[in-house]
């Protein structure tokens, strides 16, 4: 029973309290670029969860065998292998989305979340916990991604998942899409505001500053 609650805690901690993007400031690079549409953000979040959980699992399995001074190279190899798998998968089954994500799937390799989890968690914990930790971080990352994408697509294009949701009479009444939301600066500002919101709600996240 005790074991179970620990696993649950590991799963949930990174989702809110230790959110990789909003609190730990990791993995922001890709979080911003692919949040113009909900669809791409969702695919990216799933790919990320897959890569971080699987690579944490494998690295944790090998943690006693990896020599300390070449561990970064070993970690990078494991991570890139999973990224190649997911990239080939997207190319085969979701070609359009893979075109839109362009280089950002590849950039999961250098995403600090994956490396960070491998270094700080997988190397010192058993495989099943490392896997759960990876899933938790993937969800934490994904929820911010989807949140930002939701705001940007709704306000910028008036759509969700490519389907128009703003009713027509609003446009007739003079409402206009804020095209600015689709541009790069808006992503920075939205993330900034989200961080503000979350830090105010979870006072005490000071340790990471």
């Amino acid at each position, binding site marked *: 029973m005790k074991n179970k609650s620990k696993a649950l805690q590991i799963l949930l901690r990174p989702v809110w309290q230790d959110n990789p993007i909003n609190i730990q400031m990791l993995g922001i690079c890709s979080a911003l670029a692919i949040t113009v549409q909900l669809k791409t953000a969702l695919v990216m979040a799933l790919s990320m969860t897959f890569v971080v959980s699987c690579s944490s699992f494998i690295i944790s399995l090998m943690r006693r065998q990896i020599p300390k001074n070449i561990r*970064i190279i070993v970690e990078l190899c494991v991570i890139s292998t999973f990224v190649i798998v997911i990239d080939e998968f997207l190319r085969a089954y979701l070609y359009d989305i893979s075109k839109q994500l362009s280089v950002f799937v590849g950039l999961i390799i250098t995403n600090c979340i994956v490396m960070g989890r491998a270094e700080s968690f997988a190397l010192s914990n058993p495989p099943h916990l490392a896997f759960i930790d990876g899933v938790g971080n993937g969800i934490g990352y994904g929820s911010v991604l989807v949140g930002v994408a939701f705001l940007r697509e709704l306000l910028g294009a008036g759509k969700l998942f490519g389907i128009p949701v703003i009713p027509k009479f609003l446009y007739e009444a003079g409402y206009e899409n804020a095209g600015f939301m689709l541009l790069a600066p808006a992503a920075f500002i939205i993330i900034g505001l989200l961080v503000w919101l*979350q830090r105010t709600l979870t006072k005490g996240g000071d340790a990471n500053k």
Partner: protein
Amino acid sequence: MTENLVSLFVNSVFTGNILLAYFLGMCSFIAVSKNINTAVGLGLAVVFVLSVTTPLNWLIYHFLLAPSALSWIGLPGVDLRFLKFITFIAVIAAVVQAIEILIDRFSAALYAGLGVFLPLIAVNCAILGASLFMVERNYTFTESLIYGFGSGVGWMMAIVTMAAIRIKLRYANPPYGLEGYGLTMIVTGLMAMAFMLFSGIAAG
């Protein structure tokens, strides 16, 4: 031809700034932009590594990985493109390590300035990102040279400016929660907006 290269350079520094338009290298951008001196140091290291790795990866991609690139050793029709991620990251890590050793050997002063930043750079997404963009946009060898250098300069400019702004912000009194990271993101957003206005220049 040269006109193209100049506009590519201007484009990679300003409108297509690798940090402000493509969001690459954010992690170190936020972590290291607290102080101008370290920002300049990291910026220089990024310029250096980008201008070496991007053309190097171009050579590797076009002579080893691209479809039928191996025909020069009698293996036509081999397509190793799927290996590009792992190859590029290995090349980057190796180059960074080699540069670190060289600098350590030949210039103690430079090592003191840049040395600590070099390991950080191996996992900076801007470096890998530039190589991947180079492949995706089909740059020629010269273009990849210019692009690598230009992206580095653009990144350095962004981080140094940010460090300067953050030093001024130290005396500001933002609400709790916005302080630090949140404020940095919003300021970056404003900077990105300013850089977008350069787009008129690149077109002309």
